[in-house]
């Protein structure tokens, strides 16, 4: 009797763990994508209605969209902060801690540092390992397309390595200040043991036209 109850409990535990995998790798994506789509639509609506006047930055709903053709996942909404709460909505967050990101719209030299989930919760940076040197990374704001080119990749680094976020990330090989973008996520897939880093540098800025024609890199 006792043995059969123990057996049933073990089977139950196994089923619950299996369900947790389903939850982590599937259900969180469903929920996060739904949220991200809704928030993204809201940002685009605001842009279309020109709310807040020129230059106004609505950081609450998101500041723009990240397009990385080599990740093949469409557009990723970018929001403020890298807390679990922000990232779990299926978006990329720009760092405000421990090193504050320099937003491209400020035109200052610095580093536009972003983080997003590798698995679950939208898994927006799942295919980060498909990015190669020379690939374009495009950030879309209300008025501009910021076209970056990937110049350095760090496939594995410690999660404490905050130096990768510096406004001049020396580890990328750069020695002079510039306009950089940094993508961070966890690696290897399905774990959080290390961090995967991709660096890009701003190539050009293209004005958004009335039809929002994407730059040729996204063609």
């Amino acid at each position, binding site marked *: 009797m006792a043995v059969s109850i123990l057996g049933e409990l073990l089977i139950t535990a196994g089923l619950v763990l299996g369900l947790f995998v389903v939850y982590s790798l599937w259900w969180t994506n469903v929920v996060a994508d739904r949220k991200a789509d809704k928030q993204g639509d809201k940002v685009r609506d605001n842009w279309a209605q020109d709310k807040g006047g020129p230059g106004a930055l609505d950081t609450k709903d998101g500041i723009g969209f990240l397009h990385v053709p080599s990740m093949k996942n469409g557009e990723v909404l970018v929001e403020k902060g890298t807390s679990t709460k922000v990232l779990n909505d299926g978006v990329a967050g720009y760092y405000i801690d421990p090193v504050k990101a320099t937003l491209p719209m400020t035109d200052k030299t610095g580093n536009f540092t972003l*983080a997003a989930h590798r*698995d679950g919760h939208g898994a927006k940076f799942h295919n980060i390992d498909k990015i190669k040197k020379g690939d374009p990374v495009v950030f879309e704001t209300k008025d501009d397309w910021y076209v970056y080119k990937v110049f350095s990749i760090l496939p594995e680094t410690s999660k404490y390595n905050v130096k990768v976020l510096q406004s001049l990330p020396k580890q990328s090989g750069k020695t002079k200040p510039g306009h950089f973008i940094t993508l*961070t996520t966890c690696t290897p897939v399905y774990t959080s043991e290390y961090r995967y880093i991709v660096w890009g540098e701003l190539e050009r800025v293209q004005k958004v036209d009335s039809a929002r024609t994407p730059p040729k890199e996204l063609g």
Partner: protein
Amino acid sequence: MYGFIWRHLPGNAWVKALISLVLVLAVVYVLFQYVFPWAEPLLPFNDVTVNNQ
């Protein structure tokens, strides 16, 4: 344990099966809605940022 639950459900086999299905769905709902979201941040699978801690 499951035998005990089965024996104490009312009705014939079909009704028991139906109630069991509803119970299973209720358990899955509670897990997905409350238990897993609570457990997830405690497990080291989903940290993606670099930080000082």
